[in-house]
């Protein structure tokens, strides 16, 4: 079968889809792209069996049918030929001829019926959110996901769908990040999106006004973003009850300037233990003292002005976690609640109750 495509119209979707394909492959078919053509448009599919990306591209002309092409080589060819060129693809039984301008290529093809693409099953749940909102929900929490933890259900992000709101949650057991947004849903439920898919989604989402649909089936989640469809497997597990981990806002809050505190933490962190990153925080009335020392007995001490009117507190934290949280908060001021030196710390932007962060204390 033959199709003709325009280089400029296909390059961007092609690179996007080829991006999910892993460089090192055990199955040869997984390094290929599947093309499903209907005469006017073609859908290109790439997968690593964990996530799948589909994009629609316009055809200048062509027949209906499907075929596969080596992803990396075909993308390179499209990238390097001159702008505006038309690409003619003529697929035979075991070779595909690709002609563009004066260039001619002959590529190996594999049987499209061997391609492990996903069957589209009817969704059991669907949520619709503004693209920019969803992007924010993911970006404000994704850094707290665990990496290669044996508790496999932590290596991903929880999307908790409740009747009145949707919340994203990520935790690695030492810190937790959660963000929520109002959204009415008929069927509450929870899904666990794997780490790899979350990172892929952050690359796809842009600060746009349009709506994004998230379809949930028993085993997969599907996002429709513009003309790109992103599908990922779900983690098959039960997430811990995150609400029990979040301490209530009890006692006096510590209010601090976010950027000033962040800079002070970054300076103090230089002399913290490189492996454990522990620092001590001493809080007295309207003052926060940050203390760090390393195995070479070098010390750092820094004072930050805060608003606080409570008992004297002394508590240790991983400074890396604190810096990451302060980086994810947008507000100029942040509030911290620390009940005592053994309890976890709740952080959030001033008057922003939608994004909350919890950090467990450590003994320094």
């Amino acid at each position, binding site marked *: 079968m033959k199709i003709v495509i325009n280089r400029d119209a296909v390059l961007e979707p092609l690179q996007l889809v080829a991006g999910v394909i892993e460089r090192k492959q055990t*199955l040869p*078919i*997984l390094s290929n792209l599947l093309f499903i053509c209907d005469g006017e448009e073609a859908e290109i599919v790439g997968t690593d*069996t*964990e996530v799948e990306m589909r994009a629609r591209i316009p055809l200048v002309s062509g027949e209906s049918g499907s075929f596969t092409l080596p992803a990396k080589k075909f993308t390179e060819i499209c990238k390097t030929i001159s702008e505006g060129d038309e690409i003619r693809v003529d697929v035979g039984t075991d070779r595909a001829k690709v002609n563009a301008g004066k260039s001619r290529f002959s590529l190996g093809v594999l*049987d499209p*019926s*061997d*391609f*492990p693409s*996903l*069957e589209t*099953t009817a969704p059991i749940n669907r949520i619709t959110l503004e693209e920019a909102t969803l992007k924010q929900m993911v970006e404000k929490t994704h850094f707290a996901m665990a990496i*290669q933890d*044996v508790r*496999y*259900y932590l*290596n991903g992000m929880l999307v908790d769908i409740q009747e009145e709101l949707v919340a994203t949650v990520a935790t690695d057991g030492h810190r937790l990040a959660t963000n929520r947004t109002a959204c009415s849903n008929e069927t509450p439920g929870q899904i666990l999106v*794997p780490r790899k898919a979350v990172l892929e989604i952050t690359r796809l989402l842009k600060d746009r006004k349009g709506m994004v649909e998230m379809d949930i089936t*028993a*085993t*997969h989640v599907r996002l429709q973003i513009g003309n790109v469809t992103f599908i990922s*497997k*779900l*983690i*098959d*597990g039960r997430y811990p009850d995150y609400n029990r981990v979040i301490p209530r806002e009890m006692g006096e809050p510590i209010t601090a300037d976010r950027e000033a505190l962040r800079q002070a933490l970054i300076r103090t962190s230089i002399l913290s233990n490189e492996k454990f990153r522990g620092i001590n925080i001493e809080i007295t009335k309207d003052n926060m003292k940050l203390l760090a020392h390393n195995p070479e007995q070098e010390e750092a001490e820094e004072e930050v002005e805060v608003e606080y009117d409570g008992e004297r507190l002394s508590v240790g934290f991983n400074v890396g976690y604190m810096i990451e949280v302060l980086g994810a908060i947008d507000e100029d001021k942040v509030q911290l609640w620390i009940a005592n030196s053994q309890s976890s710390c709740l952080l959030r932007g001033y008057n922003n109750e939608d994004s909350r962060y919890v950090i467990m204390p450590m003994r320094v």
Partner: protein
Amino acid sequence: MQPHPWQAPQWRQLIAAKQADRLHHALLLDGAQGLGKRDFAEAFAAALLCAAPDEEGVACGKCKGCLLFKAGTHPDLHLIAPEEAGKDILVAPIREHVQRAGLSSQLGGYKVTLIDPADAMNLSAANSLLKNLEEPVSWTVMLLISAHPSRMLATIRSRCQRLQFAPPSPELALEWLQRQGVVDGRLLLGMAGGAPLRALALNDDGVLAMRREALSDFLGLLEGRGDAVEIAGRWEKHDLERLFYWMSGWLIDILGLSSGGARSPANPDMVERFTALAARLDGRALFSLLDKVHEGRRGLRGSLNPRLLLEDLLLAVVQCAKVSGGNR
């Protein structure tokens, strides 16, 4: 894909467990080499991944799951094997598997992992599999294949349900071999310790010639003729695992004959010559030689120089002949 005829009881057991939804998530397929454990595991994996298996539980071969299985691209089937035959399974592929094991299945059915041979996992690979082996997510089945389960960690073995495979009755095996077009079934079966697939692999003129050559060298040494070092040089090029296996078979036959010959011999064609040797050689020396062969077989998997291993063993054969000569 169907299981071999002698595997019917194990097949029925698993299919019944599957239909009753009582299938254990980790199965250790254990039995001598050449009994078709891998074929069985693949047939069972295909059956698990098939949308419409027939009434005996065999995969239909037509649904999407079966087509992907045949193409070797089924996303819910994970094969783990050593990078090179005979080497260890390293920790990296096991870790990668554990990473993905928590994900839901792509076609919505079972997820199957096949580890062959499971005893090739090195210590850290085996240890990183443990957690997953203990508490897998639902709809996961792990098939571990091993001819030497004793080489595996006890903690791995104890987490698996054991499915044992024994050599089939000679009649069943011979009938099957005949259907595969084997003429000399009885001899081959004897040489293969009753394992039909192993016997089938031996059905090759080259292999039979090699056996004749090796056997005459070996018996020559036992009778006090031949140069052990020269023979080791020639043998080095052959499949050593097979040679060692044969040598243990020959020695066991000789020992059997020297103590009355009640057991049916593995080498029916050599009974006369073996009987003569059995009468002449010292039983104690033969037993220690047999130990040496077994030790050598274990040594093959390690990093020992095969040439030195062979020379050492064959010199021991010469020694055995000498000791016996001195006794008489």
